[in-house]
């Protein structure tokens, strides 16, 4: 039973991945415009040169053949960026490693902050604290993130006089290992706080409403009526049950790595995946756009698959559907 459920979920997703790759390819290639290497409006470039470049990029071929070339090169690992002729996969991997710490610290902040805030607000529902945290978390997501980013950068640079841009302080190669490490941690602080902001607001509201729902359930009342102290009731019985829906969220967090932080990476000069994708779009670097989107789609599918599996394991009723 379990096995059948998994295989069905898996085949569905493989089919989906295939579909997504076709749609993505068609959309990118049907969009007007050509790679910035092909610049027909540049009077210094002769039509022969342009024809040559288009041929090298297979842009003169019918769409289905271009799709075939893309898939073939992707599988062989021969896929090269138009921009610098470097292989696409290592390029993406390099950026992935740069985005990873940002993503990790951001997620850490989100989860660390949301749970205490949300639980406390639920327990003290209607109190001054509850209302303040509601207001605070909505205030955080009510500002355009780039507005906040500029204000934060200017504030830190003017008041503390330390660099905040980039992944590390420039020219610190000769410092000791520990200070280089701490320097990198410092450069994570602002961008990860900024990218965590929205997450904290959303997740803490979610934790709060989950807790409120659970607190009224019968088993919590029973536990309370048994005379257990309030902390045990809340943190042991209620929280454990409120946690179930969060399992799904783990899976869905993965794709946020790709598109989640374009603006923050752009402002903080962070060489991550979001910036890679954004610049590839501006340059119409098809191999990079396509591969990046395909990977993001695969990650999402993987994420939903994982959360389905976790759910099925945690809650056997689902499997019977």
């Amino acid at each position, binding site marked *: 039973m379990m096995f059948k459920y998994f295989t069905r979920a898996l085949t569905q997703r493989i089919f989906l991945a295939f579909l997504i790759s076709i749609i993505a390819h068609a959309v990118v290639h049907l*969009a*007007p*415009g050509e790679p910035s*290497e092909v610049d*027909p*409006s*540049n*009077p*210094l*470039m*002769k*039509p022969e*040169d*342009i*024809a*040559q470049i288009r*041929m*090298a990029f297979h842009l003169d071929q019918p769409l289905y053949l271009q799709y075939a070339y893309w898939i073939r090169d992707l599988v*062989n690992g*021969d896929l*090269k960026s138009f921009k*610098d*002729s*470097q292989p696409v996969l290592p*390029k993406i991997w*390099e*950026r992935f490693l740069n985005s990873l710490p940002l993503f990790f610290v951001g997620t*850490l902040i989100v989860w*660390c*902050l949301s*749970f*205490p805030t949300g639980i406390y607000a639920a327990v003290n529902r209607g109190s001054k604290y509850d209302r303040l945290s509601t207001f605070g978390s909505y205030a955080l997501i009510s500002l355009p993130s780039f507005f906040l980013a*500029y204000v934060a*950068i200017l504030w830190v*640079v003017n008041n503390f*006089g*330390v*660099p905040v*841009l*980039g992944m590390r*302080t*420039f*020219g610190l190669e000769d410092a000791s290992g520990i200070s280089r490490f*701490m320097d990198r941690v*410092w450069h*994570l*602080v602002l961008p990860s706080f900024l990218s965590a902001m929205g997450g904290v607001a959303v997740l803490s509201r979610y934790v709060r409403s989950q807790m409120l729902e659970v607190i009224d359930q019968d088993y919590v009342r029973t536990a309370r009526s048994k005379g257990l102290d309030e*902390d*045990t009731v809340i*943190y*042991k019985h209620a*929280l454990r049950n409120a946690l179930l829906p969060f399992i799904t969220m783990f899976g869905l967090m993965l794709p946020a790595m790709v598109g989640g932080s374009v603006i923050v990476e*752009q*402002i*903080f*000069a962070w*060489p991550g995946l979001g*910036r*890679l994708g954004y*610049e590839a779009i501006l340059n119409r670097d098809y191999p990079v756009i396509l591969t990046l989107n395909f990977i993001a789609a695969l990650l999402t599918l993987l994420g939903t698959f994982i959360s389905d599996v976790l759910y099925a394991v945690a809650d056997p009723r689902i499997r019977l559907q």
Partner: protein
Amino acid sequence: MILKNALLFIPFLVFLGLLQSYLWVPTYGDQTTAGDGRLEKFISAISGDARLLNPIVAADSASGFVVSHVFDSLLEIDENLRLKPHLAKEYKVSCLATIVVGEGFSPESLLQKISPHLTSEASEIRVLEPSTLIRLIDPDGPGPLKEQEVKVTRPNRIEFSLDDVDPSFFEKSLKVLGAEYGQEVTGISAVSVSGKISEGLISIATALAPITEIRPVIDFDLRKDVTFHDGEAFDASDVKFTYEAIMDVRNLSPRRSDFEPIESIHIRDSHSVRVIYKRPFAPAIFVWSYMGILPEHLLNSVALDKEMDARGISGTARDGFGVRASKFNRSPIGTGAFKFTDWKTDESISLARNQDYFDGPPEYKELHVRIIPDSVAREVEFKAGAVDTYLADPHQVARYLKDPAYQPFTSLGLGYTYIGYNLRREPFQDVRVRRALGMAINIDEIIDYVLYGEGQRITGPYPIQTDWYNHDVLPEAYDPEKALDLLKEAGFHKNSEGFLEKNGQELRFNLISNNGNPQRKAILTIAQNSWRKLGIRCDTRLLEWAVFLKDYVNTGDFDAVVLGWGLSELDPDLYQIWHSSQTGPQQLNFVGYKNNEVDNLIENLREEYSRTRQVKMARNLHSLIAKDQPYTFLYVGRRTQVVDRKIVMVKRNESGSVVDYEKLRPTPTGNLNYFFNRWRKLEAIPDL
């Protein structure tokens, strides 16, 4: 309760852990003090990362900047705009002139007949034996390639070696010989073709076997004391290889058309090369003043094969693997004043001083380029002293001009901005309307307030600092009243709503431009406003670049556009932009400008080799086009690089000790980097 406490403590610990890192980070103040060698590092900030660090494929400004420090060219343009030897010790321009021996002549009798009519003295005269040429050519021009094999049989020819390029060497002789001379042995009769003969083929084939040829020659004598950064000596094979790599179609070099006039390059000995051109083309020598020379030993087919093996590239991918795909482009090795050391993608590129540089090592020990995409962020880093220079936006420049801590350097660009009118549509067919529209816009005010004075007004199709520009054409003054009179003359009158109309048709049109250029956006708004004051309704739209080109410009579906051209300083050719044959879809004369006089002049200019006559013709063209006003020509923009004022130029005496400091200065063409190797940063702003 453990969990409750943990939920409180973990966030606390995380924040503490994150925030304590502040204590480890050096402040800007620490970074800019002399202690850790900051004064010996030059740090520049740039908005986009470099693409390929290789002179033959570098097209963006970041790559260009790095490449110019890592590679050297054969020649240089010095501060007086004259060519100066660099990797080449010496160079000499001469010429080979050949004439076909026609039917009824022997080489001797031909020579006898024409020698009184030759215009220069030949240093050497040779008779060339008959030969055959085999070429693959594409008769249809660009598009899917359909190559045909062409075999050209060339008869006896006489070759004269001349000390100077003389394009008219045979002019008189040909008159004497008559128009029919040599027709029977050249052109299509000398060509045998595989497959169908089309009209395109005939013209190409005729060009392959002309009756006379004037082929300029440049002989370069190379320096013998130059080595690449890996220790290998620089020699003639590197020059030849660089040319071949540019022409190799696999490398998609954007410089290919610049080198197209070259017929061949010959290695005469290990340190001298001869470049032979297909035809006289005066600006051709300038390509040697910017093209960096590649190390042949690292990029020839043996080296590339080795690299492919190491990277496990096999099958069809091997065929397309050229210099463009090589790892060399991410860790280049040249002969330049700086050696490449490190490239962190989208973060920074680092170079280190080349101690053995043939021209003497530069003052700076290290040269770094930092990539900071956001303009506010760039300014923040620059003001904090973490960056020594960057290209400032016009409104920032206004601030730096007043600040004693910085020195801004401005140079005119080679591009100009204009408003173009679609001449196929009413009412733009009437020159009075175009003039009126131009007069209604206060261009000087745009330059003063939108560009903060960082631009210069132009009146015609050439950048103002080039010789081609005609300074006798005066700009039309801002005069909305006269503009209104002109429009009335053209038949427009104000209707009851206060808008202009003609035959019941309101004067209303659209003005479009591409998104992402703040200056064009401002011009769009200003033009709309100025025209509305005359009573013209103008709808403006900003479109994404790709959409803008494909759906509007290329299809001719627009009334007016705000756009710019980037031109070359060396070449006065206007064929693509102004010739009436270039008005089709996808072509650059998208406004549909047609003027026979201009057409003839453009064609003649293409075949003219004398600089003085070129200048005269170009200026003539300028005034013709300016009279027609198919565009409202606006301005040539300036670029401003701001540099920390602590940076100066070092002057050393012959024994190498520092004599004096000078203020930084650019060359007359605005090249600030020309003296870069003499730059150095001092601890305090000097009194210069």
